[in-house]
């Protein structure tokens, strides 16, 4: 029997479930602007914001700012990984070293990275370096903590198995411990890249910038170009969301054995 229209729609419903929330959100927004509940200067209509987003991303300067932010975020993330992963493995594989530095790492991990801006400004000057360095610093601590944790919680039996088969200390580290720490490392990298994005955006707002999404948000706010501001906010949101999605899918593919 051929499914009826209603049945097809019903079958489609669960698949589109994530969209319904977004649709309701846009609808409420649209109603609010068309009823002028909120000053239209402060809250432009969804259509105006979407137009600004589309225009900016397809030939306008939003794309340029977007790519600048992506570059800074990824650059600081790569620096963070390069420092934190080897260091985390070393720290995690020695109980003594880890206990000695645990407090320091935990302390700076809990320190808001934005509180470090002035210090980094002194160290690196006003410019590109500072933004990337602060973001890398924040991300590195999160990644470091997770890698060390993953290494410490590596399954002892797997390490023993490698040892009994003839692996040296270094061999156990590279053949087992490194892999065992992978799932936790990925958790750290996911939080790390999100944090790097947050710090880069804030840095673009306040540390003399000429481009980037953060700078764009604050500039459009100052000249009261609200559609432009919302467009930049959405671009930043989409960037964060996509980075998370990207890392989740890499994680699923790469650490397929996670939890097994």
């Amino acid at each position, binding site marked *: 029997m051929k499914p009826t229209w209603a049945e097809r729609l019903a079958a489609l419903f669960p698949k589109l479930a994530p969209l319904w929330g977004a649709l309701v959100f846009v609808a409420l927004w649209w109603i609010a602007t068309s009823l002028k509940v909120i000053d239209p200067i402060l809250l432009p209509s969804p259509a105006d914001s979407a137009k600004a987003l589309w225009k900016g991303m397809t030939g306008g300067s939003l794309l340029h700012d977007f790519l600048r932010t992506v570059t800074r975020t990824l650059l600081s993330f790569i620096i963070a990984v390069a420092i934190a992963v080897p260091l985390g493995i070393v720290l995690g594989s020695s109980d003594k070293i880890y206990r000695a530095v645990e407090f320091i790492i935990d302390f700076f991990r809990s320190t808001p990275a934005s509180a470090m801006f002035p210090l980094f400004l002194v160290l690196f000057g006003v410019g590109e370096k500072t933004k990337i360095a602060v973001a890398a610093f924040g991300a590195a601590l999160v990644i470091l903590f997770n890698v060390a944790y993953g290494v410490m919680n590596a*399954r002892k039996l797997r390490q023993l198995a490698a*040892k009994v088969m003839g692996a040296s200390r270094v061999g156990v580290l590279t053949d087992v411990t490194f892999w065992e720490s992978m799932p936790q490392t990925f958790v750290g990298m996911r939080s790390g890249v999100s944090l790097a994005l947050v710090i880069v955006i804030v840095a673009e707002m306040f540390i003399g910038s000429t481009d980037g999404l953060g700078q764009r948000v604050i500039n459009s706010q100052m000249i009261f170009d609200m559609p432009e501001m919302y467009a930049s906010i959405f671009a930043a949101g989409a960037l964060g969301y996509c980075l998370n999605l990207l890392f989740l899918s890499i994680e699923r593919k790469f650490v397929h*054995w996670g939890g097994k």
Partner: protein
Amino acid sequence: MNTPIDLMSALTGPAATGPSDHRWFPPGTHITVRGLTKRFGTTTLYENFDLDIPRGQLISIFGPNGCGKSTLINMMSGILPIDAGEVLFDGKALRDTRIGYVFQNYREAMFPWLRAIDNLRYPLKFLKLSKAEKNARVEKMIARFDVKIDLHRYPYELSGGQQQMVSIMRALIVDPEVLFMDEPFSALDYEMTLFMREQLQKAFMETRTTTLLVSHDLEEAVHLADKILLLTRKPTHIADYVAFDAPRPRDTETLSTPEFVRVKAHSLEVFQREVRKP
């Protein structure tokens, strides 16, 4: 039946020529444990423990809970440090000896980031073999076990029995002088256990690798063993060292032969006597 073994011992003989203070051991001995001592905190698990493991035989280790069955093979295989004493393989130290070890927990003993075939190949990287020789070893191992396992899958995609099979193959692929097994089948169901016993025996008959099998199942311990090592409660020493020489391959019918029943009943009696001791 035992001619090849007797011949071997005639050739090698007791290593009485080695450095002096080794106590005597019978001809055909492969592993000698002397003066083994192990304490955990204030409790003494082993004190001056001596044991001879004959060459080319399968020895089951059985005893009360907590008597240190696994601890014994873990000390022999170097997983656990010993407080005093020595373990020699043909008079050599452990580091000069190729061993294989099969863990009870196959799930955690396999490397889930490697496909089954690469798990199998892993220990070969510590041997100085050419690529062709390594491949030949893998092929030989697959042929020996007549496995119907898709080795290109990841371990967690295989059943428990299949995982443990791969783990046994991984232990045997280096052609070990001694094979240690710590309750290898205890996480498997009875049907799978019987199948694995059959496979293990087949491999054992082909290679005659000296094997130490820790078991908590007396039927399994007797069914597979040439000798059953019965241990006392701690401080642990040997309660009895029972021979069982039913011909191989032994199948489920062996389980109802008078000899099997007698050896199992005797072992059970020794075991219960030990358990009931104050």
